[in-house]
């Protein structure tokens, strides 16, 4: 397996692995936020704000893999 084959195999695979990780993270965040809203509906606005911030942080990890893919795509 030469360099190009390894890269073209690894780039999509890397995105997939990153997506699995942040997918699990997003699921946990959503679960926690939904439970908190269900328990305390009057705090919905605050919980949603915090949820969106943390979800953005978790989602950014996949975006890093995505950006890396685009930076290395020309080397394939």
């Amino acid at each position: 397996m030469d360099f190009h084959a390894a890269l073209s195999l690894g780039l999509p695979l890397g995105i997939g692995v990153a997506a699995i990780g942040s997918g699990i993270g997003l699921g946990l965040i959503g679960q926690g936020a939904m439970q908190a809203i269900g328990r305390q509906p009057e705090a919905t606005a605050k919980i949603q704000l915090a949820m969106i911030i943390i979800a953005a942080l978790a989602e950014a990890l996949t975006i890093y893999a995505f950006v890396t893919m685009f930076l290395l795509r020309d080397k394939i």
Partner: protein
Amino acid sequence: MGLEFLARVRKTSTWLGGVLALMAATYVDPMLGVAFAAGGVWSLANLRLLEKLVVSLFAPERSSPGSRRRLGFALGGLLGLFAAGAVLLQLLSPTALLLGFLLPLAVIVLKAAATLLLGSRLWGAIVNHRFRAALAAMALAAVTWFALGALTDATAENGSAGGQGAVTSAAPADPHGAAPADPHAAAGAGEHTAAGGEHAAPSGSSQAFPNVLGLIAGANHGKPWADFLHHYEILGFSLLVALLLGLVAFLASRRPQLVPGGLQNLVETVVEGLADFISGILGPKHGPRFVPFLGTLFIYILAMNLFGLIPFMHSATANLNVTVALALTVFVYVQFIGFKELGPLGWLDHMLGSPRDLTGWLLAPIMLPIHLLGELAKPISLSCRLFGNIFGEDMLLVAFASLGVAMLPFQQVPFGVPMQVVFYPLILLGSFLQAMVFTVLSSIYILLMLPHDHHDEQGHGHEAGAQHAH
């Protein structure tokens, strides 16, 4: 019938002509779309002026001075219109202009034919029986299919070089034009891959929708200002967005009224909503000071994100340079706030983790690099998140637009199904969310830099907060 019929014709022609011109501009050639739209507008204006002329000539009160003035206006307008038509014929493609000119006339004929057909007995006989109606629809579809097939075969045989070249070179989202060009470019140009790391290569022109500035630069290829425009296309779009926002702000605040209406009302709603939102994060004491900076950030980023959805425009935030500039602005501003509010010693104290006892001082050498790295990571994560999301959205649109071209069996017909429209709601949501995330994170970075009050210990004040709690 009568004037009401003409008004309906105008409305139908406007919508139909707009959609057709957009399709022609996207799938065939941008200048063709412009010519088609110009022809349509010319024809519509012509119809409108003729209508005015006829009305002012044959109206009951035709001898009144107002009617005379209208008559003179219509005649002068027709003369000006003919002059404009001569200029347009010199500048643009005559065929597309003629097609655009014929569009309202065709709409009139089709509408009249439909009125006649819908009242006829044959139509009633077909429609009232459900099997006959289905059969008629299927026959119509089959005739269209075979006619298109015959048409494409004919064009393919006639001039395969000319016809195919026009399609592949012109269709912006055509996978046959874009795909083979890519590996060659990557394999052939060693310098390009070497420079790619620095320039953040993803702005590959073969893989994106065409945009206005790029087309203008391409039409004037070789001139210095065109090269400049092509190179700084992204800057051009971000400046354009800034100018538009400035214009809106100027128009809204030009004559402020106590009871706002229209634009002023809208802008005041947005500004008040942003002020409430940011004050909710930063607290009523510090919040109002930072509303101008953070609110401008939000509106600017949102406008740049959404600008890419307009045909022949481009999202400036889908380029790493713009997002890095925004994130660096936030970084410098946050450090400036830290120096101003805490003083140099206070800033150092903050970076050391605010040590107050022996444990704190022992941990300080570890806390300093952690805090410095954290500060440096903030602009990187801010810029990469915004860039990645918006760029990903653009790529999604391009991929589905080329799918819409490739899914049709008639490769020679420069036409595609606009598959990307399905994703517009998702992209509207995503653009809004990313602008909000950028703003919220910036305001939280500011909040962490501000001197902490005793009751809202957050983030960096963990050790101190734990001490107070005990």
